[in-house]
């Protein structure tokens, strides 16, 4: 408990840091109704709109349109602009939110241009983009409010905020919507959840502190996340999830692009008493690449990998080949490195080096008769260890498709993965016949385990029938999936058969619904197991 509290305090302290550097809202918009459209990033105010800029400029009109992507505003109908005791009226006024330019439109005399100090206007040609006021339908607004505080290129805070088209959207006294474009804001270290509703607390063009209301592991949870981003070249993210619960977790990651050739990524996470972290240096040499990765986890285990990858080499017929070489080690502090710990002198194995080679071959998508197409991949790898041991893996996959009609398509896929652990001369030592049958988590003995001597296979095949009209966002997909794995037993592993029906449709222009019904057969000792999936999409 004390640990969780300390973690929460640290996270709160970190979250408070960017507040000091928070960008001040440079414009506030008020009106009888304010509608926000998330797709076009625009705000429309009606019933006497009033826009106040940070330098004291006040613009008013019957209605206002603010283009957040381009930092411009248009106030139309009995428009007035005031600055330092000077007032100018026009039929429409266009202003920049973070620049000095002001355009005045008078239906009788045309356009004149001035600055926020409202000096002598000069005649100018009409720029349609400056005065564009889209005829939007307020019914489709994402947020409805009466007051909006705008920070250019960062966020807009609505107070209060109602969500007329969002299913389950509860009105709140204040809501921060972030539209900073840095892709680093997409990074998260929060684990997956059935439901996650972020709520922005503090935002700047380069940072965002948010609280998350979550539903995970059949329980509600709160999470706090801090994101820092610098364009698309650097980001850092930290989060703590469910700090006051025994199943809480925390994590961080940071990324920096080092010029055109190199990237550096470091991340770490802690959950359920386990802690681990990675540091990776990625490099590109044309379309070839390399990677250095160091991995560390509690208990004293660490590993290192250095790999080099060729570009996709063009072969005859459009086939491509990619080769990768890897060298590295596995290490256990104090010895007893797994799985060598089973040897009588297991403690001697603290670090074992290895090297490996991988080949990935892919065919192009080949179009066959009757509208069919097929693509095949083959991936094989072998890793040699300093200890007499090697590990092999071969994966073959193929997928085929056929367009039945304009709206219906058929897809089939097959994947077979075979892997093997080989200890020359010591196979029976590492894979002995168990003296007693392995008992699975449901308490049943698994006699097939006797057959496992290091080689495993996973086979997967699917057949999907899809209805997807090309001009509609509605789609239906019926899938039958079959797995045939060794080892697999009674609910341990992938279900042997699975039948799914997925539907996607949009009952409203800005709300989509994804609904799924699945049946797993021959799994968990049960004849079949039904399941639902449901998601609301923007």
């Amino acid at each position: 408990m004390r640990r969780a509290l300390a973690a929460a305090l640290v996270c709160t302290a970190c979250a408070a840091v960017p507040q000091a550097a928070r960008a001040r809202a440079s414009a506030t918009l008020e009106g009888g109704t304010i509608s926000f459209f998330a797709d076009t990033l625009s705000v429309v105010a009606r019933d006497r709109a009033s826009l106040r800029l940070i330098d004291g400029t006040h613009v008013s009109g019957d209605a206002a349109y603010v283009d957040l992507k381009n930092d411009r505003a248009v106030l139309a109908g009995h428009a007035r602009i005031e600055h330092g005791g000077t007032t100018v009226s026009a039929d429409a006024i266009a202003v920049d939110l973070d620049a000095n330019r002001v355009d005045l439109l008078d239906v009788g005399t045309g356009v004149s241009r001035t600055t926020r100090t409202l000096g002598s206007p000069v005649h100018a040609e009409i720029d349609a983009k400056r005065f564009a006021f889209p005829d939007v339908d307020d019914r489709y607004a994402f947020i409805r409010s009466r007051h909006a505080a705008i920070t250019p290129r960062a966020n807009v805070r609505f107070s209060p905020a109602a969500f007329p088209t969002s299913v389950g959207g509860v009105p709140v006294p204040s809501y921060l919507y972030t539209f900073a474009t840095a892709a680093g804001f997409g990074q998260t270290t929060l684990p997956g959840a059935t439901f996650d509703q972020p709520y922005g607390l503090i935002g700047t063009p380069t940072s965002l502190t948010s609280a998350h209301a979550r539903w995970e592991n059949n329980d509600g949870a709160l999470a706090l996340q801090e994101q820092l981003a610098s364009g698309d070249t650097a980001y850092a993210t930290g989060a703590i999830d469910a700090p006051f619960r025994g199943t809480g977790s925390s994590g961080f990651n940071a990324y920096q692009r080092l010029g055109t050739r190199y990237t550096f990524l470091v991340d770490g996470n802690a959950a359920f008493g386990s802690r681990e972290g990675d540091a990776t240096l990625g490099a590109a040499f044309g379309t070839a690449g390399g990677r250095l990765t160091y991995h560390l986890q509690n208990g004293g285990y660490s590993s290192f990998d250095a790999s080099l990858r060729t570009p996709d080499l063009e072969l005859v017929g459009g086939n491509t080949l990619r080769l990768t070489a890897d060298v590295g080690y596995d290490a256990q502090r104090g010895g007893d490195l797994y799985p060598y710990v089973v040897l009588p002198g297991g403690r001697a194995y603290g670090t074992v080096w290895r090297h490996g080679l991988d080949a990935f071959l892919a065919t192009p998508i080949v179009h066959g008769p009757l509208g069919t197409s097929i693509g095949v991949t083959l991936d094989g790898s072998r890793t040699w260890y300093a200890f007499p041991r090697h590990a092999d893996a071969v994966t073959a996959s193929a997928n085929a498709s056929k367009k039945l009609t304009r709206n219906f398509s058929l897809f089939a896929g097959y994947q077979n993965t075979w892997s093997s652990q080989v200890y020359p001369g010591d196979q029976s030592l590492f894979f002995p016949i168990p003296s007693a049958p392995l008992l699975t988590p449901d308490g049943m003995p698994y006699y097939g385990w006797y057959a496992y001597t290091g080689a495993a296979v996973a086979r997967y095949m699917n057949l999907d029938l899809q209805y997807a009209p090309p001009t509609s966002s509605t789609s239906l997909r019926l899938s039958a999936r079959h797995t045939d794995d060794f080892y697999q037993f009674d609910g341990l592993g992938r279900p042997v058969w699975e039948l799914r029906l997925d539907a996607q449709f949009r009952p409203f222009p800005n709300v989509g619904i994804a609904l799924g019904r699945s049946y797993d057969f021959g799994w968990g000792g049960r004849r079949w197991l039904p399941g639902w999936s449901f998601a609301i999409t923007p």
Partner: protein
Amino acid sequence: MMRRLSVVLTSVAVLILALPSLAQPQGTLIRFTGQLLDVRNGYAYFSSGDAFKLSPSYKVADYDTGASTTLQPAAKIFARAVLDPATKEVVELDITTRRLPSDSAYSTDVQQAIATKPAIVLAPEIKGIPVTGKEVAVEFIVTVPPSTPVNADVYISTDAGGWNPQEIKLDRVEGDRYRAVRRLASGTRFVFRVTRGSWNSVEVGQDGLEVAPHAFFVRESDAQSCPATVYAWSDNRSGAPQAAQPGAVPTPFNPNPFGGNPLYPPSRATPPGGFPTPHPAPPPNRPPP
């Protein structure tokens, strides 16, 4: 009984919600691509069974360059027919000997309702094209690399959607192509990345490093296409032999051979009240004597 009733009611509610989107307009054909069967008597016949009337002054052009070509439209030649939505006649036939995938593009019914000339003619002194915010059918087409898993779902994540990695789910249209159609207001501007549902599996560049997001802007048009190509996925380590970590290799000495492996989902198959047999102690992590 109540359970069945609730299932029926839920299904009816879902069906009612789905009806408006199922009834969306199909639009007018504006482009059709396929293999020619014949061109005769003023019609172009395709091997798919489709036939289109040729405009009296239709143009034959090279598919790749758009320039005039010496190649003649004939059987087995692949062609893209460009139709005039007003007359529904082929005004251009772009031909090639290279195999082309069957495809068709449609305008929307919105287009049919729009006058062929703008209702308001801008004064000559007005420059620029205003963004009216009208609805535009936007088709996202994403080509994925061969290393994409056979059962992968592909999504588009945008800055406008808060970088939700599952924001727009794409439908598969071919082995390596996915597509989604959205109706967006003109003037919509965003950047996006392609994901496989999480930020651990996001697109990377040909060099394996992170790429800048794709920029996209909805123009003042009736329909728009947005193609994107994914060269590789960030979690694609097929080219790197994997190191074995503790517990990753299942041996009889591993106390938990089935647990902790992402291949095996959590035991949601556990019946209510748990299994009848108590969980036994795991086998010891020691070699046999």
